[in-house]
């Protein structure tokens, strides 16, 4: 298989990479760009651990080909904090104990950020349905919902 050269941006940085035609974006991020924050929990779009945004749209990076990403703006968990300053979601996830093993956490944070970008005041039920594609086996989700809501409140300037 002949590799394809792609130019894109990841977390605002210009990147160039070669990928095989059948190579998922997830493998590109992890194996070619050294961005291992997105995880492969299933490789079939059922767990959400590989969530990233491509051109602002939340996707499973295991279900996108690297070859499709010419010119794309990709955002991953590695770009969520601003230097040493954590995003409110990241901070509230730690403070509310919304993670245990943490392997689903990058995907859930990316997905939660995408939710709050389009709905600053979701109900608990809206958060639960939005995150239905992000499996977490440790927490039972309770503290995740709590952390998203408290981060949302802070982002709305209510705290």
């Amino acid at each position, binding site marked *: 298989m002949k590799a394809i050269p792609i130019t894109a941006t990841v977390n605002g940085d210009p990147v160039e990479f070669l990928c095989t035609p059948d190579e998922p974006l997830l493998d590109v991020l992890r194996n070619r760009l050294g961005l291992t924050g997105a995880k492969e929990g299933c490789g079939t779009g059922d767990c959400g651990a590989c969530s990233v945004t491509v051109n602002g749209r939340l996707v499973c990076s295991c279900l996108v080909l690297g070859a499709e990403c010419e010119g794309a703006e990709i955002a991953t968990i590695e770009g969520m904090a601003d230097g040493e300053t*954590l995003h409110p979601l990241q901070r509230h996830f730690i403070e*509310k*104990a919304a993670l245990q093993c943490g392997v689903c956490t990058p995907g859930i944070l990316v997905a939660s950020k995408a939710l709050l970008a389009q709905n600053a005041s979701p109900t608990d039920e809206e958060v639960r349905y939005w995150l239905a594609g992000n499996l977490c086996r440790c927490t039972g989700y309770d503290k995740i919902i709590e952390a998203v809501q408290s981060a949302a409140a802070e982002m709305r300037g209510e705290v």
Partner: protein
Amino acid sequence: MALDDKKTRFKYVGTTPNRPDGVDKVTGKAQYGADITAPGMLTAAILRSPHAHAKIVSIDASAALAMPGVRAVVTGADFLDHEDAFFADVSETCMAKGKALYDGHPVAAVAATTPAIAKAAVRAIKVEYAPLPHVTDVDEAMKPSAPIVLEGRALEHVPAGMSQNVTNTCEFGHGDVEAGFAKADLVLERSFKVSATHQGYIEPQACLASFAADGRADLWCCTQGQFFVRALCSQIVGMEASQLRVTPSEIGGGFGGKTTVFIEPVALMLSKKSGRPVKVVMTRDEVFKATGPTVHASVDCKIGMTKDGRITAGDMTLRYSGGAWPSGTIEMGAQAGFAAYDMPAVRTVGWTALTNRPKEISYRAPGAPQAVYAVEALIDEMCQKLNLDPVETRLKNAARAGTLSSYGVTFQEIGMVATLEAAKAHPHWSAPLGPNQGRGVAAGFWFNFGGNTCVSLNISTDGTVSVTEGNPDIGGSRAAISLMAAEELGVPYESVRTIVADTASLGYNDNTDGSRVTFAVGLATIKAAREAIKVMCQRAAAFWGIDAEAVEWIDGAAHPAGPNAGKFPPMSLAEIAAMSFQTGGPIAGHHEVNVDGAGVSFGVHICDVEVDPETGFTKVLRYTVAQDAGKAVHPQYVEGQMQGGAVQGIGWALNEEYIYGADGRLQNAGFLDYRIPVASDLPKIDTVILEIPNPGHPYGVRGVGETPIVPPLAAVTNAVSRAIGKRMYQVPMSPPRILTTIKG
């Protein structure tokens, strides 16, 4: 404080500081099993049996080996023969020898320069199979006509009417069961079925092995126990333990499922053959097909009860299958089944039979949910028949101090009554219900364990503290251990950093399992801190020129005591640390112990559901968990264990199961059809932590992680059964099963 003194007032323990691994985990920096790489690394792929049961006639890997980029192939022939059945069995779960025993059983593995070449090479390996008859159901496997899964592993005396697949039997109990039934006003006997479930950790197994030409090797992997991995791999591969260093990565969930090896010996063998580092990462379907699920079970349960709700006797027969190899889990289930109750007469008989399924591995309270489910569901049915309140009835029969337990031990102070009282007092228990809704309650029990534990605690010259422990942190244990070190030493939590060591850095530690880490590693940490305090008191005494016995440690500082009290200003940990080089050298404490005294725990769960009478769809509306957790070191993380365990149990009750086809192949090896709960399936999971101190721990800490998965199977069953007005006898209660019962 003396080494064994108890402490009941706390400054740091019981607070909820941020976990030390938090920032790395929310920024994507934390390194899990699949995130680790090495220069020159090869990638492996594994060829697996498509047959449930087949003789492997021949394996021809020549075409694979001829492919450019392929550097090594291993098959069962490369693996040593082991006399010890334990090691032989583990080795054979990693690579079949002669016979494939289940769909997904590894048959060969390839290491190549890219994943694509490895996958293509696996396809190029030619295996000739001679398929054999298979059996995947425990009841079928016990019939004399069943195909024999493994020759030579049957009980010495298999009873008439049973097959050579029966590998284990056990019996527990006391009293005259028949006499007990004779005293009952109602005796009910029911049969239950419990499907096998998977731990469902989100991170698939992954490892990287690197074998050096001189016989040393390094292994990085996601595991619940690097020391056990070393013990298994060194035996399977045939090397000295000290020559293999195992470093655990962050672990993306385990729940018992990462307490053994599947791919690590394969990676080591491929690395040895190729001379290159080799990485193995399982795919999700490999995880489902070929790592350990739970046992599946078939249970007959019989209980006698008087009109006013006193249990007179219980008798239960449990049939478990842990797949193609013998498994001892039946003993845990048989002991746990009736353990929550004061049984005048009780008998539990257990059987284990082999089936063509992957080898069972622990899953949170292994063996207990299946047995307790039957007991708790039957008690609920009897309460309905006798028009009794299910909580009051459980209170009437609850085990308490002095009760002779179903497993033979007389209980000391335990929390069953307190836990039931907490459930009864919770507003959930008395809230109104709507149409098609039902409320279930169920209790659960688990033993909890301690085990081999080593902790090394070092005081830095700047007055900060490093704790080195040997148990992968699966739910926040580094934070809990840091809290206990801070508490004992009297320094801020932020001054303590706890790390998980590789196998070369500490003595043997048992796996992160059995709800043992916060309890046992915490205990060793406290004792290591007390050792360090002793040294620091000696240094201060020497500095002051007084007797070391006349110095006491209060709130992070050495104080002259007794006749010397007030003679010198107290000297803080930081001050003593700063002069440590001049006063005898670096200061440390360590503690190595095989901890016992974990203390049993009880949980009571309340569940409300609404069932769609036309489709059987079940929605969990409200859920409450009450549990005696001992001293809650980090209460948020204790709640997290209770919520997470309950939700796993809810998944088991409603949807999760291993489904085998008539061909003996697994039908649902993916998250699409192995349906673990998603966020929108669930309500808030309310928690009540009862801090009943464990006398076996200096701070009263008790294991909490496993008990929460025990009650949900019955709590949800009882809720559904009450909602539909008919009893359910099988989990999971998938909608077709519920609808069949409704239409009944």
